C-alpha cells in the first residue's frame, strides 16, 4: 500500500493544490503562487519516484461497490512514461507562469485551474479504467474551457484573428469566452462518440477496467465477440477514436485549437505540450493495442488503423498548410501542433497497418515526447516575444533578435527540432514515422507526410524570420520611441524555455543511446499473454534507412530554405491582397466557416423555426385558446351549467368558473380565508384519521 500511495498521490496532489489555492491566496499572493508551483513540483517528483520504485500493477480501491466498480491507479510503463512528461513539462510551465502572469487579474482562478488541469491530466493517464479516465478526460476539457476564456471580460487585445477577418460571411475573430466555449462544445462532439463506445463495451464487458478488458479478450465470449456478433465491433472502435479526434484536434474536429490561443501563452503551452491535446494520443495509445487484438480476432484491423493513419496524415498536411500563411505567432504554433499530432496519429495508425506494431507504436509515443519538449519551449518563448512586442501579429514584430539573443537562440533550437533537422530530437522521431510509412508500403501516406515535412520547414523558418530577423516593424519602432525597448525575459521565464530548447537538443544527441531501452520499456506495457503482436520483421537495409533519412531532412531544408530567402533577407511586409491559394489557406480551407454555418447558424435557425412554428404556432396557441375559453366560460358561469350539454366541457367549465371566482377574490385579497380554510380542513381530516379512525 505504501508504495501504491505514491502512485495515487501523483494525480491527487495537484488537485489538492488546486482546492487549497483560494486558502493560500487569503494568506498572501506570493504564498499562493509558490504553493501552486510547489504542488506541481511534488507531483513531478512523485511521478519519477514511482517510475523508479513502484512495481507495475493495478492499485485499486472500492468506488461504486453496488456495481463492482473500483477506482484504481494503473502503474505500467505507458502510464508512467506519460505521467513524467506531463508533470515535468507542466512544472516548467508553472515556473514560467510566476513571472509571466505577474500582476495579471484573476490569478487565484488561474492557479486553481492550472493545477486542476495538471491533476486531471495525470488522473487521465494513470486511471486504470475507462470511467475514471473519463473524469480526467472531461476535467481537462473543463479546465481548457476556463483557461482559454481566462480573460473573460473579452477585451479586444486578447482576441484571436485579425480585425475584420471573415470567411463566407462568418467572423473569424474569436473572443476568449467564445473560443473557450467553442473548444468545449467541439471536443464534446468527439466525447459523445467516445461515450457511445464506452457504453457499448460496458454493456457486454460489465467492467471499465483496462486489464480486465484485455483479459476478457482471451475467452471466446468476450465483449469483442459479442459486439462483433451484432456487427458493432468496428463501429465501436471507430466511435471510440472519435474522442481522441476531438481532444487532439484532428480532422474533422481540428477547428477549435487554432482559436484556443486567447488564453495566456502559458496556458497555450500547457494545452499543446503537456495536457489536453496529448490526451487523445495517449488514449489511442492505451486502447489502440486492445482494439488491435480485438479487431484482429475478426479481421477488421486494417479498416480501423487505416482510418487513424489517414486522418493523421491528412490533418498533418491540412494544418501545416494553414500555418504557412498565418499572421499571429501563436496561431502558427497552434496549427503546427495540430499538424504534429497528425504525425503521431499517423504513427499509431501505421502500427496497425504494418507488420511491426510495436515500432509504429513507440514512434508515435516518442514523437509525443519530443514534440512536448520543443513545443512547450516555442510557446513559452513566443509568449515573451508577443509580450515585448505588445502585439500578437508577427508583422508587428521583427528585428527582435538583437535585443533578445537568448530567447532567439532558444526559439531557433526548438524550431530546428520542429523542422526535424539532425541532430535534434524532432528529427529522429519524425523520421521514424516517415520511414515506417514508407517501409510499411503506405506510399501515399508517406507522400503526405513528406509534403508536410516540407511545409513544416517553411512555416518554421518563416515564423522565425518575420519575428526575430530583419528590421524592426513600424509597430516596434513606435514602441522604442515611446521608451519601450525589447529586452530579455526574467529568469523565471527564460530558464524554462531555454532549458526545454536545450533539452530538445540533448534528447536528440542522446537518442541513439536511449531509444532502444526506452522502446523495450514501453513495449513491456504489453506483457499480458493476451497481446500477440506480430513478430518484429527485420528493418530494411541501412542504405534504405539512410536514403529515407536524407529525403525527409532534405524536404525540411528545402522548405526552410525557401522561407529563408523570402523572410530573412527581405523585410517582411504584410500583404493585404493574398493570392487565391493563400486566401484559401488563410481562411482555413473555409472549414471553420462551413462548420459554423451548419452547426451553429443552422442549428439555431432550425431551433428558432421549431420554436416559431411548433412551440408557438401549435402548442402555445392551443394552450392560450384553452386558457381564454375557460376564462370566457367562467365569466358567463351563471347560465353555463344549463347551456353546455357535453359533460366533459361542463366539468372543465365549472372548474374554470370556480377558479376564476377564486382569482377574482384573490385580487381583492380574500384568498387568505380560502387558504386558512383549506389548511384547517386538512388538519381536521388528518386529525380525524389519526385519532378517530386510527384508534378503532
Amino acid at each position, binding site marked *: 500500500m505504501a508504495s501504491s500511495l505514491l502512485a495515487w498521490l501523483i494525480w491527487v496532489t495537484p488537485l489538492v493544490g488546486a482546492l487549497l489555492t483560494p486558502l493560500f491566496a487569503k494568506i498572501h499572493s506570493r504564498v499562493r503562487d509558490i504553493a501552486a508551483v510547489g504542488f506541481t513540483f511534488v507531483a513531478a517528483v512523485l511521478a519519477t519516484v514511482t517510475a523508479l520504485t513502484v512495481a507495475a500493477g493495478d492499485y485499486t480501491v472500492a468506488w461504486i461497490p453496488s456495481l463492482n466498480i473500483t477506482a484504481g491507479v494503473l502503474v505500467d510503463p505507458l502510464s508512467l512514461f506519460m505521467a513524467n512528461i506531463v508533470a515535468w513539462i507542466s512544472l516548467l510551465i508553472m515556473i514560467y507562469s510566476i513571472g509571466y502572469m505577474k500582476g495579471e487579474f484573476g490569478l487565484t482562478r488561474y492557479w486553481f485551474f492550472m493545477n486542476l488541469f495538471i491533476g486531471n491530466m495525470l488522473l487521465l493517464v494513470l486511471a486504470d479504467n475507462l470511467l475514471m479516465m*473519463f473524469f480526467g478526460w472531461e476535467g481537462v476539457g473543463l479546465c481548457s474551457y476556463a483557461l482559454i476564456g481566462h480573460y473573460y471580460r473579452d477585451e479586444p487585445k486578447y482576441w484571436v484573428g485579425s480585425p475584420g477577418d471573415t470567411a463566407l460571411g462568418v467572423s473569424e475573430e474569436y473572443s476568449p*469566452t467564445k473560443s473557450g466555449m467553442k473548444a468545449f462544445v467541439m471536443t464534446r462532439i468527439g466525447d459523445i462518440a467516445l461515450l457511445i463506445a464506452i*457504453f457499448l463495451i460496458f454493456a457486454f464487458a460489465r467492467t471499465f477496467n483496462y486489464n480486465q478488458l484485455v483479459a476478457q479478450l482471451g475467452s471466446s465470449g468476450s465483449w469483442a465477440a459479442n459486439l462483433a456478433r451484432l456487427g458493432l465491433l468496428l463501429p465501436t472502435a471507430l466511435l471510440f477514436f472519435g474522442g481522441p479526434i476531438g481532444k487532439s484536434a484532428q480532422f474533422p474536429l481540428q477547428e477549435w485549437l487554432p482559436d484556443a490561443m486567447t488564453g495566456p501563452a502559458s496556458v497555450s503551452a500547457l494545452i499543446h505540450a503537456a495536457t489536453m491535446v496529448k490526451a487523445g494520443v495517449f488514449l489511442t495509445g492505451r486502447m489502440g493495442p486492445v482494439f488491435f487484438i480485438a479487431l484482429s480476432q475478426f479481421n477488421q484491423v486494417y479498416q480501423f488503423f487505416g482510418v487513424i493513419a489517414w486522418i493523421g496524415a491528412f490533418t498533418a498536411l491540412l494544418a501545416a498548410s494553414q500555418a504557412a500563411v498565418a499572421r499571429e505567432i501563436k496561431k502558427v504554433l497552434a496549427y503546427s501542433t495540430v499538424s504534429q499530432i497528425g504525425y503521431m496519429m499517423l504513427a499509431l495508425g501505421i502500427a496497425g497497418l504494418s507488420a511491426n506494431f510495436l515500432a509504429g507504436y513507440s514512434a508515435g509515443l516518442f514523437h509525443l515526447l519530443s514534440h512536448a519538449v520543443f513545443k512547450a519551449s516555442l510557446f513559452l518563448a513566443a509568449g515573451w516575444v508577443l509580450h515585448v512586442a505588445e502585439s500578437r501579429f508577427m508583422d508587428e514584430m521583427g528585428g527582435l533578435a538583437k535585443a533578445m539573443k537568448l530567447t532567439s537562440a532558444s526559439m531557433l533550437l526548438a524550431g530546428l527540432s520542429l523542422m526535424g533537422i539532425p541532430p535534434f530530437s524532432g528529427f529522429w522521431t519524425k523520421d521514424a514515422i516517415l520511414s515506417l510509412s514508407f517501409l510499411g508500403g503506405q506510399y501515399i501516406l508517406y507522400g503526405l507526410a513528406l509534403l508536410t515535412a516540407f511545409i513544416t520547414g517553411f512555416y518554421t523558418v518563416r515564423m522565425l524570420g518575420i519575428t526575430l530577423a530583419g528590421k524592426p516593424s513600424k509597430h516596434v519602432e513606435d514602441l522604442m520611441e515611446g521608451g519601450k525597448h525589447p529586452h530579455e525575459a526574467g529568469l523565471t521565464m527564460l530558464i524554462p524555455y531555454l532549458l526545454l530548447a536545450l533539452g530538445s537538443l540533448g534528447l536528440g544527441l542522446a537518442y541513439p543511446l536511449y531509444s532502444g531501452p526506452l522502446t523495450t520499456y514501453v513495449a513491456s506495457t504489453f506483457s499480458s499473454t493476451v497481446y500477440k503482436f506480430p513478430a518484429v520483421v527485420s528493418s530494411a537495409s541501412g542504405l534504405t534507412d539512410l536514403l529515407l533519412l536524407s529525403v525527409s531532412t532534405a524536404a525540411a531544408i528545402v522548405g526552410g530554405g525557401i522561407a529563408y530567402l523570402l523572410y530573412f533577407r527581405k523585410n517582411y511586409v504584410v500583404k493585404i491582397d493574398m493570392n487565391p491559394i493563400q486566401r484559401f489557406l488563410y481562411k482555413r480551407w473555409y472549414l471553420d466557416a462551413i462548420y459554423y454555418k451548419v452547426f451553429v447558424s443552422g*442549428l439555431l435557425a432550425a431551433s428558432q423555426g421549431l*420554436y416559431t412554428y411548433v412551440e408557438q404556432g401549435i402548442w402555445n396557441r392551443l394552450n392560450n385558446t*384553452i386558457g381564454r375559453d375557460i376564462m370566457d366560460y367562467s365569466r358567463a358561469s351563471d347560465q353555463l351549467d344549463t347551456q353546455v350539454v357535453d359533460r366533459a366541457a361542463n366539468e372543465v367549465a365549472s372548474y374554470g368558473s370556480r377558479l376564476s371566482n377564486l382569482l377574482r377574490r384573490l385580487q381583492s385579497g380574500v384568498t387568505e380565508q380560502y*387558504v386558512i380554510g383549506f389548511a384547517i380542513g386538512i388538519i381536521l381530516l388528518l386529525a380525524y*384519521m389519526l385519532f378517530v*379512525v386510527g384508534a378503532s
Partner: protein
Amino acid sequence: MTLLLIGAILVPLLAIPILYALSKKLTEKTGFVSFIFLLIPLVTVLYAALQGSGSPQGTYQELYSWSPIGNFGFRVDNLSLPILFIIGLLTALVSLFSVPYMHQRIGNDPGRYGLYYSLFALYSLGMIGTVLATNLIEFYLFFEIMLVPSFFLIAEWGYGEKERISLTYFIWTHVGALVLLVGILVTAYLTGATDMDLVISNLAVNPGLISTTLRLGIVGTMCFGFFVKIGQFGLHVWLPSAYAEAPTPISTILAAAMTGIGGYATVRIVMTIFPQAFLTFSAFFAGWALITMIYGSAMALVQDDIKRLLAYSSISQMGYILFGLAAFNSFGVSGSMFQYVSNGTAKGILFIVVGAVMLQVRGERSLSKLGGLASKMPITATAAFIGSLTLAGLPSTNGFLSEFFLFQGGFVRATDTASEYRLVIAALGIVATALTAGYSLMAMKKIFFGAPNSDTSNVKEAPWTITLPLITLSIVTIILGIYPEPILGRLLSAARAIVGS
C-alpha cells in the same frame, strides 16, 4: 407505534397557522422560521431511513388504519429516500432564498408574508406526502394537495399574465390527475385493494383480476397523468409559462423538486404494479423521451428569457428521466432516479442563481441585457458554473453519473434485445447532451462574462440567504458526483427489486 414519519407531514401542517400568526410581526423574516420547520421533515426522513437500514430495501414504514379504504401509510425506502432528501433540502433552502426575494416581491405588506409561507409549507407537505404515500388514494390526495398551493402561489405573486398562466397550469395538471385517478380507481376496484402492497400481492395471487389489455389501458391513463406532470413533449404546453412566470422561489421548487415526482411515481406505482404493461410501452416511451430531450434543448437554445430557458431545459431533463425508465433495467431506472437528484441540485442552483440576478439587477432576466456579472457576483457565478456543468453532465458533478447510468441502461437494453431502434435512440440521446452543453454555456457567457454594461456595472453579490443555499447545493452536487454510492447504491438495489438486473 412510534409516530415518526407522520411527523414529516404534521410538522409542515402545524407550521401553517404558526407561520401565519408569526408573519404579522416577523414579516419577511418568517422565512427563517419556515426554514427551521421545513428542515424537520428532512431530519425525520433521514432518521426513519436509519431505522430501516437493516431491511433489504431499507424500508421503514408506518401504517395508520384508514377503514374502509385501507391504510394511510408512510414509507421510506431505497427508492424514496433520495427523492425525499432533495425535496426536504430544497424546500428548506428555498425558504431562505424566499426571504430576500419575496421581500422584494411583496414589499411592506406584513399580511402577505403569512399567506406566502403558509402556502409554501402546504406545498412542501403535498410533495413529501406524495412520495411517502403507501396507498393509491392517499397518493392521489397528496398529489392534488401539491397542486393547489402552487397554483395560488403563481396566481398571486407571479409575473406577466399570471392569472391565465396559473389557470392553464392548474387545468392541465388537474386534468392529468383526474385521468390518473381513473386508472387508480379501476385498479382499486378490480383488485379490491388500495394499498399498493396489497394490490401487488392480490395481483400476484390472481393475475386474472386485470386482463392484459386492461392493464395496458390503466398504464396508459396513469402515465398520462404523470407525463403531464413531467411535461413530456405534447403534454408540456403549460410548463414553460408556469415556470417562467412563477415567483422564482416557486419556479425553483416546481422545476427542481415537483415535476420529477412524476417520474418517481411512474416507478413507484406503474412499473411496480404493472411491469409487463409498462415494458410493452417502453420502446414507444423511449422514442417519446428522445423527442422531449431534443425538443426541450432546441427550445432552450433560442430563448432570451433565462427563466424560460431553464423551463425548457427542465422539459429536456425530464425527457432523460423517462428515457432511463423506458430502458427498463436496473441501470436505466436507477440512473433515472439519480437524474431526479441531479436535476434537483442543478435546477435548484440555477433557478436560485436567476433569482439572485433578478434581485440584484432590478428584475432583469433577459440574457441580451445582462453580462459581465462574474466579477460582481463571484459566488453566484461559481455556483451557476457548477449548476451549468451538472446540467451538461460533466464528470465530478452528479449530473454526469446519473446521465451516464441512464444511458448505459439504454445501451444495455439495446444490446440485450439486439434492437437497432433502441440503439439509434440511445445514441441520439447522447447527441442531445451536446445541445445541453451548448445552451447552458451560452447562458453562462451571456450573464456572467464579457464587460459589464450600464445595467450591471454597479451590481453587488447576493445576500447570504441566497449564497448559502447555492453553496450547499453545489457541495452536494460535487460530493455525489465523485462518490455516488450513498444514492446510487440504494437506487440500484431498489431498481433491481422492480425490474431485475
